[in-house]
């Protein structure tokens, strides 16, 4: 039946190292968002592998389902949880990371030793499988609806369980009557918190984005004017520089006009 074509080999040797590095980056990244993006990269690369190995359906499903839907859901979840709720990266068991790495490397060596032994000279049955029902997708359909029909149907139970579980764990039913806007505003005055809208971020000649706090009359920065999420992420700028820069510019101007 044929060997691996040159094109496939070239593609593999270019993409495989990238995929492995990206997979390591998934584990190694400190920020969850970065991990998710590396994961997306791994999945797109996998889709390309599937595509060159004559499995077009899997390649498309990989892109649409995993990269498209699952990864975006991951990112949504990260956004909902909020970037400021960070994981503690302190090891609770000493030497755990080293031990895990050693175990991982050991497992990898074992797998390489085992699978490297396999005879991979020829493809076995690929063309037959892809042409049995007239194509790749048709072949898969035939398998799903005959040989694996029971497994396919049993997955329905898994999906219902997943939906039900999400409802049980996350759906909070309203207790009592839902407050309307009037009641909410009365509530806000009763509680005695801030009743006005929060101050807007600072607008300066050189910078007017949301990461720049406004100045209070006494010249200090107003913490309320920037989002606490940005503050937690360490992305808030200090207005001092802008103020100082403007002041120095004004001083320059003043000097110029006087002379």
């Amino acid at each position, binding site marked *: 039946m044929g060997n691996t074509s040159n094109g496939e080999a070239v593609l593999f040797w270019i993409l495989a190292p990238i995929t492995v590095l990206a997979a390591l980056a998934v584990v190694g990244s400190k920020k969850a968002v970065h991990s998710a993006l590396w994961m997306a990269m791994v999945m797109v690369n996998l889709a390309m592998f599937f595509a060159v190995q004559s499995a077009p359906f899997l390649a498309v499903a990989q892109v649409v389902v995993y990269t498209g839907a699952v990864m975006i859901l991951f990112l949504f979840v990260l956004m909902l949880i909020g970037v400021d709720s960070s994981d503690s990266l302190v090891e609770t068991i000493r030497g755990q990371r080293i031990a895990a790495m050693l175990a991982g490397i050991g497992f990898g060596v*074992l*797998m390489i*030793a*085992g*699978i490297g*032994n*396999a*005879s991979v000279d020829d493809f*076995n*049955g690929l063309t037959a499988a892809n042409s049995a*029902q*007239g194509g790749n997708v*048709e072949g898969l*359909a*035939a398998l799903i*609806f*005959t*040989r*694996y*029909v*029971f*497994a396919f149907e*049993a*997955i*329905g*139970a*898994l999906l*219902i*369980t*997943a939906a*039900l*579980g999400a*409802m*049980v*764990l*996350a*759906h*909070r*039913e309203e*207790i009592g009557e839902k407050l309307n806007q009037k009641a909410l505003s009365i509530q806000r005055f009763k509680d005695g918190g801030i009743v006005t809208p929060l101050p807007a971020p600072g607008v300066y000649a050189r910078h007017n984005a949301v990461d720049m706090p406004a100045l209070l009359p006494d010249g200090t920065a107003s913490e309320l004017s920037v989002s606490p999420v940005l503050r937690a992420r360490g992305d808030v700028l200090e207005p001092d520089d802008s103020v100082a820069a403007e002041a120095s510019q004004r001083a320059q101007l003043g000097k110029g006009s006087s002379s």
Partner: protein
Amino acid sequence: MIRLAASETLIPAPNIEYYELSPILIVFGVGVLAVLVEAFLPRAHRLHAQLALCLTGLVAAFVVVCTLTDEAQENARAVPQKVAAEGAVAIDGMTLFLQGTILLLGVVAVLLLAERRLGGEFAASAATVPGSAAEKETTRLGWVQTEIYPLLMFSIGGMLIFPAANDLLLMFVALEVLSLPLYLLCGLARRRRLLSQEAALKYFLLGAFSSAFFLYGIALLYGYAGSVRLSDINAAVSGSEDNDALLLIGMALLAVGLLFKVGAVPFHAWTPDVYQGAPTPVTAFMAAATKVAAFGALLRVFYVGLGGAKWDWHPMFWGVAMVTMLFGSLVALVQTDVKRMLAYSSIAHAGFILVGLVATNAEGLSATMFYLLAYGFSTIAAFAIISLVRDGSGEATHLSQWAGLGRRSPVVAGMFALLLLAFAGIPLTSGFTAKFAVFSASASAGGTPLIVVGVLSSTVAAFFYIRVIVLMFFSAPVTDGPRVAVPSLTTALAVWIGVAVTVFLGVLPQPVLDLADNASFLIS
């Protein structure tokens, strides 16, 4: 209108044996109906509707299992041998015996889940933050999270497929179907909710990890045999000698996934934490039914699919069985919490059951099935009794609080003592019959070292079981210690069923032993 082109080949419709599969289909159908009950019935009626629905469904499925066994015995004096659903499900003696066991344990579990008088074991609303005002309010309103019933039914459905799966792909799907609801149920305790949620998360993460191993094993075996069907794998194993590496690694990875589910030693770490944190009825169900299903799958994979490679996996299982028995018994000695103690005891029991599995003969198969039945009922009753011993803050699981319990509530403490004696394998209890069956099967297969280790660890185990009995009956009661709460009828029924089966299988085991003997058939 789309018309098929003449050249297109039509896929022949699959042949589904609905009758043989109906126990599974009934349980899943009831699960779906139970979800609809959640969606459309007002809160006040849900609990009773769920109870009626689940019990009816489980009993109906059990009746079908009995009829299937019966019919086959009438026809050919043997158990049915049929591969259903295009060869994906093997309906044979072991399948029917274990399905019957799981369904009966499921009935008992539903009875336990239905406990209301003790305030219930499940959170009023699992979505509320522990300790929040919303949690207090929902608890005050007397809400119950009745979604536990459909979740339990889906889990039971998965367990019914797991030992019957004749194809590794279906087995993996069944593993997930049975595990996912259990992960959820573990996190729904009413009291000590953070501990319960931690248990659920641990179980989920470790379970997902072990599923990955299982899947990797399937992939490698597919690479070896070119099929995931057990009969094809068997043919490949017995037919060829080359490229054993794939077979060996695949087999080992498959064993990791399955041994994780039964809680055998290198993969037992989740057991104590999850058993302790989960709501007690869920712990009871997990300890009993999950073991049955997982051992069923283990038996099928290694007897049917990998039977030809027996000499490759045999030594590994010997080692695992020995270590599991010894480790479980020794670590249980130093436990101070009753639930943790029973968790380690369940690890030790997994080892004893493995002794039956490594016998690799019909006797071993029948002994293993009998052990699973006997242990399932004893353990479900033991956890039910633990849920009755309570003080002001809920269950009193610390061993020191159990001191002198026998003087205050002799009946309950007596039943617990009986169950502990069954765990220890004292004659006239089901535990003795089961251990005897397993050891004699192993002896006939030349497993004398295993038996020596087994008897040794039984002795160690007997020590800590009897220590609890001594503590309950012969030490002074602690002041303001826990009381035995009066449960509602359902829990009482569950305890009585468990105790009755334990005694019955100890005194008159023959009919059930015969049943297991007749059922020790595997087909592929």
